[in-house]
């Protein structure tokens, strides 16, 4: 049951094949069993069970709220959740319990979803590995998969080999691990430079970054206000579309959401791609790209072509500037956004009471890790009067050029762009930490961050396993506010590639019952 699509589970719930409480308990039990993954910072067991009870009542009356009623979900710990600790994986917010729900969280709760807990991340969403949080790193469930271990000729139950576990990617690694390990069906992440798409690719999931302005950021603790969006992690493209349909739309509390009414996100079944034009940006052919990813990318392009689509090479000439541009604008906004963490109104406050200034300094030194402090210092440097013109303004201009690159390409008749999501598959943690956070971020975000600079929608779809048995994903980038078209194409592609399900049953007893070939012939699905 836990490996099914939202529609299938929803149908099963409606038909009484399983109850919300049973579903909830299965997921809670799995969370306990997979605690070593460190995917969750907070598990809201009591709340989830209570929500399950209410959902059950609704189903009994035949009054389910929709496809998400009674469905376990998880939320990245940088979304404000009322009454549930929200830490952003930082000492600064340990013990901080917000008094309000983020708009997207509220929307999901209003649909009857069961909140299993808050997931782990890089501190304040700064990082591409989910390794630099105050609660420790997140482990990629694929480290324990049959597919991976077979290739490494490891015995499945060999605990000693755990030292070489793989990263999930980041910064929404906890959310990715939570979905990948079947502890929930949907998880919210955030995406500022690729933080939803990157872990999705490494964990074999669908990672959707909606268009900027489509989904409310109210309650999402910001990293870069002009680039952040709530991200959606699921196992299937259809599921991501369902959730997007529930979340998209104007929020009066977020002045950057568009006012236009939002079209529903039911995805048509695409059968004919002959009218599509797929763009392959030539600047994304980087020497650092692993051979396997390169080969898969090529294969995907060939697939579209063989099915009748037009596949052309396009140019995004300012691609090489996107890293520095992103770095300047990101650190500047970070420096500004982090200014509120002074220990006065909420969060961590140090013990010093010599003076207010001393209190600020000690609180912020104790509360933030090196990554955050480094970015604050850089950002403040760029915002100094004497530097503002040369750095910040320049970066804004470059940002406009990068955004225009995409506009020009889409105006020339291209429907979507097809690119890799990451340079290679997930690496072991011990290898990842050999380089520092900013080096890794600069490397790993290369395919994803330009999309945030331009505010476009993008989705990472899992394609195939590498020679090591690890997932590789590819990215589709769409025109602004053409999220539905983007997902329609992604869904077609997903069906074609038939990405395999993660096999964890030999490692965990529980999984065998989860992934037995359950026959759902009795479940009727409405299309």
């Amino acid at each position, binding site marked *: 049951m836990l490996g099914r699509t939202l529609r299938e589970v929803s149908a099963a719930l409606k038909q009484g094949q399983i109850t919300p409480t049973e579903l909830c308990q299965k997921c809670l039990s799995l969370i306990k069993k997979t605690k070593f993954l460190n995917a969750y910072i907070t598990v809201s067991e009591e709340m989830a069970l209570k929500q399950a009870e209410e959902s059950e009542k609704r189903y009994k009356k035949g009054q389910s709220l929709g496809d998400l009623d009674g469905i376990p979900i998880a939320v990245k710990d940088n979304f404000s959740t009322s009454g549930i600790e*929200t830490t952003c994986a930082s000492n600064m917010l340990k013990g901080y319990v917000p008094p*309000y729900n983020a708009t997207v969280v509220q929307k999901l709760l209003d649909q009857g979803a069961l909140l299993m807990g808050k997931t782990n991340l890089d501190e304040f969403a700064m990082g591409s590995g989910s390794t630099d949080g105050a609660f420790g790193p997140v482990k990629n469930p694929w480290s324990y998969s049959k597919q991976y271990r077979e290739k490494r000729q490891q015995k499945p139950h060999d605990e000693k080999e755990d030292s070489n576990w793989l990263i999930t990617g980041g910064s929404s690694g906890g959310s990715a691990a939570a979905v990948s390990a079947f502890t929930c069906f949907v998880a919210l992440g955030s995406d500022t430079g690729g933080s939803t798409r990157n872990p999705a690719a490494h964990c074999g999931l669908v990672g959707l970054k909606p268009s900027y302005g489509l989904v409310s950021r109210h309650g999402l603790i*910001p990293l870069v206000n002009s680039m952040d969006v709530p991200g959606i992690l699921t196992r299937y493209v259809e599921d991501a579309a369902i959730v997007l349909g529930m979340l998209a739309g104007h929020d009066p509390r977020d*002045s950057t959401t568009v*006012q236009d009414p939002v079209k529903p996100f039911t995805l048509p079944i695409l059968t004919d791609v002959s009218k599509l034009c797929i763009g392959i940006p030539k600047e994304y052919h980087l020497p650092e790209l692993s051979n396997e990813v390169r080969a898969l990318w090529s294969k995907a392009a060939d697939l579209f072509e063989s099915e009748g689509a037009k596949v052309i090479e396009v140019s995004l000439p300012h691609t090489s500037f996107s890293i520095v541009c992103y770095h300047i604008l990101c650190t500047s*906004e970070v420096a*500004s956004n982090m*200014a*509120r963490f002074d220990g*006065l109104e909420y969060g961590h406050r140090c013990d010093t009471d010599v003076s207010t200034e001393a209190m600020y300094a000690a609180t912020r030194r104790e509360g933030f890790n090196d990554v955050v402090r480094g970015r604050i210092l850089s950002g403040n440097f760029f915002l100094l009067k004497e530097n503002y013109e040369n750095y910040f303004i320049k970066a804004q201009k470059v940002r406009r050029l990068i955004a225009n690159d995409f506009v020009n390409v889409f105006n020339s008749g291209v429907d979507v762009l097809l690119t890799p999501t990451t340079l290679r598959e997930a690496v072991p943690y011990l290898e990842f930490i050999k380089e520092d956070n900013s080096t890794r971020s600069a490397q790993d975000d290369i395919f994803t961050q330009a999309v945030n600079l331009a505010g476009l929608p993008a989705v990472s779809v899992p394609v195939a396993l590498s020679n090591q048995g690890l997932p590789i994903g590819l990215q589709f980038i769409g025109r602004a506010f053409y999220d539905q078209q983007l997902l329609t194409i992604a869904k077609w592609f997903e069906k074609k590639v038939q990405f395999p399900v993660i096999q964890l049953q030999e490692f965990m007893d529980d999984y065998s019952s989860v992934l037995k070939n359950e026959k759902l012939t009795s479940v009727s699905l409405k299309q």
Partner: protein
Amino acid sequence: MAAPMLRWGCLGRRRALALVDGRTRSRRGAPTGSASDRIREQSSVAQQPVHTAQEPRKGEHKWAAVVGLEIHAQISSNSKLFSGSQVRFAAPPNSLVSFFDASLPGTLPVLNRRCVEAAVMTGLALNCHINKKSLFDRKHYFYADLPAGYQITQQRLPIAVNGSLTYSVCLGKPRNQMVTRTARVKQIQLEQDSGKSLHDDLRSQTLVDLNRAGVGLLEVVLEPDMSCGDEAATAVRELQLILQALGTSQANMAEGQLRVDANISVHHPGEPLGIRTEVKNLNSFRFLAKAIDYEIERQINELESGGEILNETRSFDYKLGCTVPMRDKEGKQDYRFMPEPNLPPLRLYDDASSPPAGTASQQVVNIDRIRETLPELPGVTRERLVRQYGMLPEHSFTLLWYTCCGCNWSHGCVLTDLTVSQVSGALNADTRQSPCPTMLTQDP
């Protein structure tokens, strides 16, 4: 450092100490004779009354003073500039604080329409050009009463620019000549007010009340077109009357709804402007003119004795009657201005420019519609009183100045024709009295 600085800064005390210093200086090897001569000269000069720009100092080069003002007026609105919490004076501490005001992470600003209208009205009343597109910025500094660590203001492109404020000063010996002056309005910008901090030195703690944090302010920037405390105070008074007539601010100084910062410098006529100091938080008319005149005098004395003016921020010590440097503001602050990313550009429309199709009406502010609703401004009221009732111009000023706030003269609700004539007559008859508000020229 504060205590010794205080003594040196104060004009009165300085006179006494200057003599001591003269002797000290000569002992330290400063040119003898000349130093003490200068000191004696200073003390004799110091006996003279505070002068205005019209009266050059004896035996010295002429000095001209320029005064610019930054006036913060709290917008009269039900809720704050970017959040829905109420605006109310003297409420229990921290009882009017929304999540956004407390800077809880994840909260976002939402612009209050009434505040925008208030800014447009004020801009129109001050003959400003209203920018159809204006932008919001973050101004960063750390202070206990600024929860977010930055203030949202309009630094790059404010809502209104290039206006004028006309006021009249009383000149001459019996001070009955009304002379019109104009101060250029550089700009009007919307910005957030900060909270209040109360320093409890006894317990070494600061108490922070965020009720005021986020209340909408109109900052009106006047170019350095004024030349003395009197002119500045009169200009502020006129602005206060205008704001009250418009209803955009109650502008009650006692309740902190109108606060003035003055930028003051002195120079020799014909030479470039001198280094300016900023005197902050002048919160009563009584001390506004006094503080400015003191600062002008202090700068002149400083320069004449070979010193230099630091580009610093000072505050006015009411008890001692002098300006003192503000300890917290040593050195120039870099506010690291950055565009506010959570607020798109503010777009206003008029009859000639319509909003995009499908824009909700609550999102549209039409400048021409607002212009139509402007009430009668004080200047027009005074002219009407003079025209209709034959009142002396200076009496029309007195009448408007001394009436209570918010009194709507255009409806003549307070006085009937008969009463106005009686008042006029009474004022006309009593020519020995100065018709100008004496509160501006009161002795300290």
